[in-house]
């Protein structure tokens, strides 16, 4: 089997965007730089550029989502693409159609890009392996595996605030086990060369061999948050209580909820992030979420230029290489 990175074309341009893993540092920097140059588009009166004019982007969402889908839709529209939203969580697949058949049907409608969210890890890879050559696939979250556009908008936010990655100590707090966001963040942070990545959670929420991801594991907030520059909080799903991973939300909040007290051991200029939607009083105190260290709303804003950058880069891979003078 071809073990070559299917995300890249023969010229090593980004053809699909499925996972941060396997992408080189320069590719991530290119994405951040492109996003930076596109971010002023979103601040203009006419918020459009014609980079994807005449292209059709399909949002294939097999899982409910509002925020991610909306920002992908906005990003596509600002690139002048036509956008089709398909909510498949409740449609074709429940009628017994296979994922491949669903894919073939939508492909038959002459689309150029699939933005895919799916509950199964590996679904975006699977789709990328089976799409027609002219189609690009962007992973908008697959199971527990990856959510690479979220990670890139987080990196964009960190770079805007901190300027660089080298000296940073970053802590990711919460349900690492089930989090595709955390996995992608860890790969992005280590590729971009931060000094240290920590994960903080009770052992029930730490996946097997987590250290193999290149992180230091902490079970205690006061140790884990000590001297960190960035804290990324993860959303806690309510299902974790019924699966016997946690006793209840109160104990979780008491031990792992981010409060001003706990944050006091971090660097004075620590930035607090969260991929949203936040559970106030479960993983984060309102005073922190709305406080001076929080960049949670900037993250949402940054989602649009970052997704624009990724979409336009993958579409460019279908064009002949232009010699720059």
């Amino acid at each position, binding site marked *: *089997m071809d*073990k070559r990175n*299917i995300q890249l074309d023969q010229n090593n341009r980004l053809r699909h965007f499925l996972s941060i*893993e396997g992408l080189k540092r320069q590719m991530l920097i290119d994405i951040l730089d492109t996003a930076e140059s596109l971010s002023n588009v979103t601040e203009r009166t006419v918020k459009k550029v014609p980079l994807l004019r005449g292209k059709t982007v399909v949002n294939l969402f097999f899982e409910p989502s509002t925020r991610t889908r909306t920002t992908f839709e906005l990003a596509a529209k600002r690139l002048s693409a036509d956008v089709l939203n398909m909510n498949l969580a409740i449609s074709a697949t429940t009628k017994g159609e*296979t*994922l*491949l058949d669903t894919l073939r049907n939508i492909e038959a409608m002459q689309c150029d890009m699939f933005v895919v969210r*799916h509950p*199964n*890890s*590996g*679904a975006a*890879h*699977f789709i990328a392996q*089976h799409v027609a050559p002219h189609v690009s696939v962007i992973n908008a979250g*697959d*199971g*527990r*595996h*990856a959510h690479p556009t979220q990670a890139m908008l987080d990196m964009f936010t960190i770079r805007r605030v901190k300027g660089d990655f080298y000296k940073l100590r970053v802590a990711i707090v919460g349900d690492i086990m089930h989090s*595709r966001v955390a*996995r992608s963040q860890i790969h992005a942070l280590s590729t971009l060369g931060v000094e240290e990545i920590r994960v903080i959670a009770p052992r029930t929420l730490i*996946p*097997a*061999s*987590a250290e*193999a*991801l290149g992180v230091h594991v902490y079970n205690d907030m006061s140790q884990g948050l000590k001297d960190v520059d960035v804290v990324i909080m993860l959303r806690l799903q309510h299902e974790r209580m019924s699966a016997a991973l946690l006793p209840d939300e109160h104990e979780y909040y008491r031990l792992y909820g981010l409060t001003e007290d706990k944050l006091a051991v971090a660097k004075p200029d620590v930035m607090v992030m969260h991929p949203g939607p936040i559970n106030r009083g479960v993983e984060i105190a309102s005073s922190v979420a709305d406080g001076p260290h929080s960049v949670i709303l900037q993250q949402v804003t940054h989602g649009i230029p970052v997704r624009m950058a990724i979409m336009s880069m993958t579409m460019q891979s279908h064009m002949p290489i232009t010699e720059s003078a």
Partner: protein
Amino acid sequence: MRIQINNGHVIDPANRIDAVNNLAIDNVRIISVGQIPSGFSADREIDASGLIICPGLVDLYAHLREPGDEHKATIASETHAAARGGITTLCCPPDTQPIIDTPAVATLIYDLAQAAGMANVLPLGALTQQLAGEQLSTMHALKEAGCVGVTQASKPMQNNLILLRAMEYAATHNLTLFLRAEDNFLADQGCVHNGPVGTRLGLAGIPTAAETVAIATALALAEETGVKIHFAMLSTARAVRLIARARYNGLPVSASVSAHQLHLTDMDILDFDSRCHVRPPLRSQRDREGLREGIRDGTITAIASDHQPHEADAKIAPFSETAVGISSLETLLPLALQAGAETDLDLSTIIASLTTGPANILGIDAGTLTVGSTADICIFDPDSYWLLDKASMVSRGHNTPFLDWELKGEVRYTIFNGRCVYEKQA
């Protein structure tokens, strides 16, 4: 039909034969190993110079899909594949449709296998009715109909009291219990080994304890009941140690491993290769070494195919949604030989694990070249390299990660019941 096989290297572990010899077959029986009887005139002579002559392989665990899943494979199609693999006896688990929990289904399987005429097919009966884990199956009737053991196949047995009773009842009828050890609560929604690869890919893990807990439970119950247990398709090094200790303590237990577990690890799943989606899951390199060590020290006495042919669609989906299993009859011998070579095991130990080893577990008269026994023989070239490609696969299922691998050790002739059922075309 009288067949004379000349100048082959005969390896017959049951009779401790390991030498260049001739072999004569008259009708369905082996009539001599060594000197060809004077006056014997063969209808056919096979020149086996440079080739190994060993007993036809005995495969402890192969899904043949019939009855019920004929869109995947049939007894006829898969026994043809078995013949290519040098296998002359196969056990099929009861999770067919209908389930082998009545004598009629066992009889049907015998009839279909006989009609195909390519290999012996020995059914394993269901341990409980409908494999539901609630009511005992009619084990005595199943045994009369030819079932060589009883098993829950891959279906869980949640109630240990029922497991205890089932063991007692199986022991009453001197039936071996085949156990695929997996605690289904610990396995939960997992689809890969609980380790770094599963963590990276975000695939839910099955911990080692899912296997060891089920084995420890069964061993404790075996001490109560004295039932013969065969732990089929081990995947972890710790399980090997548990069983080694139990055997040392005199419990009548045995163990087998699938050939692919001796080669693949969870690393082979990258990136989401559904052909490596198997149960038990591919585990760590340490586990793979532990399994190989288990063959060396005699804890594991059988290597089986765990053959699970699928239609192409069954493997075309996101990883966790794909069907489990590998189509593996045609790779059993070369993979076992290669594992043996890589661990410096002598050829007769590996051949024993494919012949007398499994035959002894089943308590059947097979897997030997004893004079007077049925002529089930595999003749292979131990030094021939060959490519496993889709076009030449005989099995209906092409789902194997070994596709396009160059394998060493190629079957040249398979003789079943005194007939040459497979011959490699030059």
